[in-house]
């Protein structure tokens, strides 16, 4: 793949004045042109629609969970239904929204644009990944329609293999299949980032969004096969009665937990790293200066990806793990917090001497920093052995991982969508409503999940359908917060759809941002760039005198 000799195909701008210039959206019409597309931007839109559908489904389950927990007695649904609700909430949100969310939507759209490429390295594999995702989703939906799964999204054995009578196999197969779509996407990103950068786009001129997607892709490619194997082992035990995890058959139930978390802990970094990449872009764009300590932030992503593979054992501190093993996992889990902390400080200091504009994407980014800080700090608390024993499997954990996965990942996802929406659609959305949504999400989120930290320390275990009455007030607060959060999520859905038809044209670069993706038109043409860009400076050079200083000695690179 030689990017230097590729100049774009000759482009014939529309002769009629007033008609839209050619872009990827109006290049072809009809369902066929979407379902058979190989354009990474259109595939990103397909993913956007499907992950939004799964997010809505997962949120619906969450709504029912919060309603059930309004009262101490289980009175809205039966315990069996409740167990299915939290299980399906977890499965849908984790495997069908959080993991694919940012990489498959924003990553797909932006990775080629940001490095100056025409598409991903393997456009057909990219389209295949979406179909595989949908196939996996169908398996899971099939299990939901037929009554759901009640094992928890963690599928702990021997409950899942021997005691649950629900649709464990079909739901797990859905996850197995969807894993391949992740692997395809990850592989595509790695090859694309290595081979298809525009001339002059050296590694240290890559936007941090690209660095974090590169780190994420490494985790996806190395980690996902492990969950695939684990699911096959569960299926083998359930269908063929091989004794792997069930002690009655001579297996070891804790072995499952090791295999499961060997993937599923790094999976948390699959969810959060791309979001961190988004935040780096937003902070730089709305402070109009380079991210403080660019290289440190870039390497912190890689550091998190590597260390993230070495901490899975902190999920088993009270599962009969040896105290010495627990000690090792504790110290490693604390170390992984350091690169995360460094990133938070770097983002904060990027604001120093910036030119800060509080437009909607920036509000989401600042909200992310706040929520991620608290989520990260409570994560280190949980890595502290003597403390984890008490709060393990309580609402403290529930609050912690929602601060990371909702406060972190969804804030980044929504912030990114708001930032690149003009790039994706060429349209503007209402400024006031979108700022209001950022505020509602932030306030609603804290009201939902902060009380759960207190509930957890009081000792309320997770996955409880009914609970002692003294926990009610905090649960009511949490449900009240969830309803605010729900409004905060519905608003963007409405005004994004509205803007596609009625929104004002955004122009090519409404934020005055730098970055290759803003050097082309909005929405971009199918081939992204009319002429192959040549990169002569770093990713966030807003200050003209600085750009001048650095371009005096251009770094040439032949891809």
């Amino acid at each position: 793949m030689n990017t230097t000799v590729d100049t774009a195909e000759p482009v014939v701008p529309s002769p009629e004045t007033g008609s839209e210039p050619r872009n990827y959206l109006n290049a072809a019409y009809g369902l066929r042109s979407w379902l058979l597309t190989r354009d990474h931007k259109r595939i990103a839109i397909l993913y956007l629609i499907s992950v939004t559908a799964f997010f809505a489904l997962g949120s619906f389950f969450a709504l029912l969970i919060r309603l059930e927990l309004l009262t101490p007695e289980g009175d809205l649904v039966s315990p069996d239904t409740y167990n299915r609700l939290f299980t399906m909430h977890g499965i849908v949100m984790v495997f069908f929204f959080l993991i694919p969310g940012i990489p498959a939507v924003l990553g797909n759209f932006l990775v080629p644009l940001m490095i100056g490429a025409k598409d991903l390295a393997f456009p057909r594999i990219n389209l295949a990944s979406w179909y595989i995702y949908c196939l996996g989703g169908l398996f899971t939906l099939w299990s939901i329609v037929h009554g759901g799964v009640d094992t928890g999204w963690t599928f702990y054995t021997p409950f899942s293999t021997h005691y649950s009578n629900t649709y464990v196999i079909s739901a797990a197969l859905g996850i197995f299949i969807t894993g391949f779509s992740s692997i395809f996407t990850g592989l595509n990103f790695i090859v694309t980032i290595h081979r298809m950068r525009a001339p002059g786009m050296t590694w240290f001129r890559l936007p941090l969004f690209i660095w974090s997607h590169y780190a994420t892709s490494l985790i996806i490619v190395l980690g996902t096969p492990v969950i695939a194997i684990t699911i096959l082992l569960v299926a083998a035990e359930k269908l063929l009665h091989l004794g792997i995890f069930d002690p009655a058959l001579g297996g070891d139930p804790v072995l499952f937990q090791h295999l499961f978390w060997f993937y599923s802990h790094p999976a948390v970094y699959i969810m959060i790293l791309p979001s961190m990449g988004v935040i780096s872009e937003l902070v730089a764009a709305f402070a109009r200066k380079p991210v403080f300590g660019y290289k440190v932030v870039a390497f912190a992503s890689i550091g998190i990806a590597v260390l993230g593979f070495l901490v899975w054992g902190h999920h088993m501190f009270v599962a009969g793990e040896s105290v010495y093993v627990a000690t090792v996992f504790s110290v490693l889990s604390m170390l992984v917090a350091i690169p995360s902390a460094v990133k938070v400080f770097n983002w904060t200091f990027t604001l120093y001497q910036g030119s800060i504009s509080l437009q909607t994407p920036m509000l989401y980014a600042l909200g992310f920093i706040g929520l991620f800080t608290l989520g990260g700090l409570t994560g280190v608390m949980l890595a502290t052995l003597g403390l984890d024993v008490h709060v393990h499997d309580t609402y403290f954990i529930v609050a912690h991982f929602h601060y990371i996965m909702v406060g972190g990942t969804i804030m980044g996802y929504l912030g990114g969508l708001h930032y690149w929406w003009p790039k994706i659609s060429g349209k503007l959305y209402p400024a006031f409503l979108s700022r209001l949504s950022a505020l509602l999400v932030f306030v609603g989120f804290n009201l939902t999940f902060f009380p759960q930290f207190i509930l957890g320390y009081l000792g309320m275990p997770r996955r409880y359908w009914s609970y002692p009455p003294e926990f009610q007030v905090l649960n009511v607060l949490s449900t009240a917060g969830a309803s605010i959060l729900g409004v905060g999520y519905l608003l963007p859905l409405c005004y994004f759809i509205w803007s596609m038809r009625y929104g004002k044209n955004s122009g090519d670069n409404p934020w005055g941002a730098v970055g290759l993706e803003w050097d082309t038109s909005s929405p971009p043409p199918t081939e992204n760039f009319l002429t192959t860009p040549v990169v002569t400076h770093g990713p966030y050079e807003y200050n003209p005198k600085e750009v001048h200083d650095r371009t005096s000695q251009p770094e040439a690179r032949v891809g």
Partner: protein
Amino acid sequence: MRSQLPLFPDSASTLSPHVDALFLAWSVVSAFFTLLIAVLILYFMVRYRRRGADDVGEVERPMLWLEIAWTAIPLGIVMAMFVWGTLVFFQLYRPPADAVEYYSVGKQWMWKFQHPDGHREINALHIPAGRAIRLKLTAEDVIHSFYVPAFRLKQDALPGRYTQVWFKATKPGIYHLFCAEYCGAEHSRMIGWIVVMEPRDYEAWLAGGPAGKTMVASGAELFEQLACQTCHRAAPNRPARGPRLEGLYGTQVKLANGGTVTADDDYIRESILNPTAKITAGWDPIMPTFQGQVSEEQLLQLLSYIKSLHADNGGSEAAGGQTAKKTP
């Protein structure tokens, strides 16, 4: 007398204050850093707000000292907390030598308890304050988790294995017992109470219940019933056909495949349920399995009995000789 809006849990064990201290210290550290970041963001937000549409930020010189500081300081803090947390953890999982052994079996969806004197309870455990208690846990079906928030203590009960937890209650009262590991439909009803009593009230409570046999005595009875002695003890007219159990517990056993294994709870349990898994060197694999013939509680009784057998006498000791040389 429980408050409508409690903000901090009851504290009723010797180790609770240690966990709380750790938690409060962490809370202060977390609040400090969260506020620090929030204040900095708010300050920068106002101080460096964009004044003109074409304004751009200044580019600061790299501040290496700052980057080193914000790497090193958090690292120092987490390492200190790691050491502290690990010390507390070791206390939580290292029972003192004088701890009295109680037993618990979790099953869908109840907690079954046995006192050393044979008393049994379901979903409630009466214990004396001020005495160290070691609770041996196992599960009949799926994984459960023994959780007493007032003791800041939790331990999974695993099917097919023994785990243990210990505590010394400080304050008489009634405290929540929860199952903390999701275990199926009635998970949220697998709850009960830990009733902490003054020692003399506890003695009175024990005396009031139906007189049970001690764990060791029940084990001895079961040993006879299952005819274990026909192989594991020599009779005057024939040699033993299986390895001697007296003095076995805690020793290293040589296996037929050349390996060695410590004769602990899990090994003895496995040898009863799956005798051919680890054959003692020098013996034939003739023992039948007792899978399905003994319940988890009976296994605990057999285990207590076998532990009570000392090398120097052929029969059982009278009352629960706790000679555990090893804590699993």
